[in-house]
């Protein structure tokens, strides 16, 4: 039963990723696009964890951890660029 639940959860996370991708492409302002990208990162972490559960493999934790760290750094860098028009001061 839990294998079917993992596959259904992958479909739901894919739908959530499509919704955040729509906001990333159609965002009316720059912070909307940053927020859409950040949501896409978070949904990608969930999708990778579920894919690791689907394959019964534990090798996707490291990929999810790297995406979490680099996603946070990317969000901070984009926001700092919008704030000050300069990344390295």
């Amino acid at each position: 039963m839990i294998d079917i639940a993992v596959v259904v959860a992958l479909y739901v996370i894919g739908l959530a990723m499509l919704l955040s991708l729509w906001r990333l492409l159609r965002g009316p302002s720059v912070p909307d696009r940053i927020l859409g990208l950040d949501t896409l990162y978070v949904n990608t972490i969930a999708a990778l964890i579920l894919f690791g559960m689907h394959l019964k493999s534990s090798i996707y934790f490291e990929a999810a951890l790297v995406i979490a760290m680099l996603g946070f750094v990317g969000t901070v860098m984009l926001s700092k660029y919008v704030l000050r028009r300069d990344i390295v001061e």
Partner: protein
Amino acid sequence: MNPLIEYSLVALLAIGCFFVLVGSFGLVKLSDFFKRLHGPTKASTLGVGCILIASIGYHAFLGDGLGLREILITGFLFITAPISAHLMARAALTLAPDQRPLQPPADQEPLTVAADAPAARTDASATKPGDDRQP
């Protein structure tokens, strides 16, 4: 596997997927940026946390033993989500300064100051507005 554990893992997966979907749907559906900021930063973080806890249980009871690396991802997400939300809100306020809410009126002082020192009250109210607006 114990069916109780299996049902609880499926329930955690369902709750996590529900919150992730609610967060992304709020990102698409809401009207203003400061309303949209609530969906992904709170609901999606909670949903991903539920999915990671389900993954801990799945790998502990079906896979290769108890691994606590998902706790690392959960803690990292729970720490970094408010920081990134704060930075995105500040970036949006920089681009649209008229979205900043009004400050409370400056003449509402404590009663003791208003009762016995009116001159000091006017000085304090003259220097108060605009102090914390500077970045």
